[in-house]
């Protein structure tokens, strides 16, 4: 096990610069700070999904990822946690965001800690996170951070309480990234020093999870060197044919 936490941020903003990217950066910065407070090293990689828009569409049609997209897939696989941020369009996540998940193998997300963020023009879209983004991660069996962060345009200009929202963006980012740090440290068996009772309970659950994950991955390890797990998924013929 490496000592460095690998955070992967996925930003589905379509413009450059984008407020979605700004939120992704804010989340990874605060998550790094929360993890760093414990002395852990953190390595952040940020992927702008717009740079893979063609690769993603191609993968949907050809059903295999391009070499460029395969590198992102490997980054997801290797990440200790993913920060996934999307604009809200037409009451749902950006098509680019959904396409990314549609084009990838669902097994990739199982038990992966994911912190969700979303942006939109006004706070009236904020519940889209709950009804249109979080359900997908439930289906993917990701380990969702309880707090998601929504940022409306006004949030970026309002750092003090009461200016835009009851809770300023910075405070909500701190809470969500603190929860992410608690999950990640618990998986490594070190609870955050500041974690309260709730933090400890989730730490206990987290370490139990860690064990089961390790066992599962030992079973799923390719029986044959050189073959990816998908190629070992078959039943020996002797078990399928009736005895004669």
């Amino acid at each position, binding site marked *: 096990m490496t000592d460095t936490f690998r955070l992967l941020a996925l930003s589905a903003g379509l413009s450059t610069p984008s407020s979605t990217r700004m939120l992704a950066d804010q989340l990874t910065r605060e998550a790094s700070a929360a993890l760093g407070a414990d002395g852990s090293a953190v390595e952040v990689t940020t992927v702008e999904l717009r740079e893979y828009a*063609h690769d993603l*569409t*191609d993968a*949907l*049609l*050809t*059903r*295999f990822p*391009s*070499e460029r997209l395969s590198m992102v897939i490997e980054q997801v696989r290797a990440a200790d946690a993913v920060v996934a941020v999307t604009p809200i369009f037409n009451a749902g996540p950006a098509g680019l965001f959904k396409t990314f998940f549609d084009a990838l193998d669902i097994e990739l997300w199982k038990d992966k800690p994911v912190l969700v963020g979303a942006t939109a023009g006004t706070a009236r879209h904020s519940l889209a996170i709950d009804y249109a983004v979080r359900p997908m991660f439930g289906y993917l069996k990701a380990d969702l951070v309880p707090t998601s962060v929504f940022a409306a345009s006004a949030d970026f200009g309002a750092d003090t309480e009461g200016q835009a929202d009851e809770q300023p963006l910075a405070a909500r980012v701190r809470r969500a990234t603190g929860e992410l740090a608690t999950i990640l440290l618990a998986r490594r068996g070190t609870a955050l020093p500041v974690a309260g009772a709730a933090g400890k309970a989730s730490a206990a659950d987290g370490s139990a999870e860690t064990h089961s994950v390790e066992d599962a991955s030992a079973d799923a390890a390719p029986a*044959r060197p*050189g*073959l*990816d797990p*998908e*190629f*070992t*998924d*078959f*039943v*020996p*013929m002797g078990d*399928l*044919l*009736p005895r004669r």
Partner: protein
Amino acid sequence: MQFGIFTIADITPDPMTGKVPTENERLKNMVEMGRLAEQVGLDVFAIGEHHNPPFVTSSPTTTLAYLGAQTEKIILSTATTLITTNDPVKIAEDYAMLQHLTGGRVDLVMGRGNTGPVYPWFGQDIRKGIEIAIENYDLLRRLWTEDVVNWEGQFRTPLQQFTSTPRPLDGVAPFVWHGSIRSPQIAEQAAYYGDGFLHNNIFWPMSHTEQMVQLYRERYEHYGHGTARQAYVGLGGQAFMRKNSQDAWNEFRPYFDNAPVYGGGPSMEDFTAQTPLTVGSPEQVIERYLTMADHVGDYQRQMFLMDHAGLPQKTVLEQIELLGTEVVPVLRRELEARKPTDVPEAPTHAARVAAAEAERGAFDDSYKFETGDNWTGLRAEDARR
């Protein structure tokens, strides 16, 4: 090594003219392709089986028999035969018939079919696709190897004292390949029986293909049919050629951009880099296909798709001619030269008959069933007595 062409018999508009071939034109064109394939020295002609538009090849043995009557040497094969939705009894009968009528120039590639709705049209359930493929094929083998079969299974009515007629030519069943792109279970099935495995990799990167073939080879050895490198492997291929590489790119691009499956997706540059599709001069096609054995090991059959995406028949025939006269002779020479002697040749009926005779002596083809009356089975009134 065997080289051939396969067609899925799709009806696709020519994007340059908007012209859509009629069903009749497409069928006649396919037969013309098969005749030319033999003339230019190709070894195999295979057709797909589909039961829905925009395809016209619902009855492969009809087409193959018609072509068989107009050819002498070429092996008639399938791409693929639907082992799931066809009754194995009918497959056993149809392809044994074809064997007799064409002097044994028949083999089959088994597939499950990739069109979900086809299953209920033939009374089957796609959720059971793999189980049906396993059961049906096991029965099919018995129907070809045992003169009288008693059988009971899940997916068709039981058989009692059933004899599939005609019996396979010379007592040797057609060679079977199992085609699958993504299902390791089918590689396992092919290996279990010591049959061939054909990976139609035309839309897939080699990193995927080589793992499927590796699995099949390892399991082939596991089941004791020979060493891993002695297993029977076939690959798909796709090419568009002109003497001048740039001409090939210019001419093929509109067909690529509008092709079913990948049209509207990756660029031709990306797709030719990622998959076996090769667009260029015959020399470039040779260069590319000489490398396939580096990934999957020395193999027995290389098939090419030459007639899809609405290419006009004249162009398709030119492509087949280039393939047969310029590409395949070099590939054949080079690939056979590199093949170790313990890797078997591609299967042919003659070789399989010779092997069977070495094992069990000469085949006695005298008729071995009851003759002399017109008894066609129990009538209800007979059963009552």
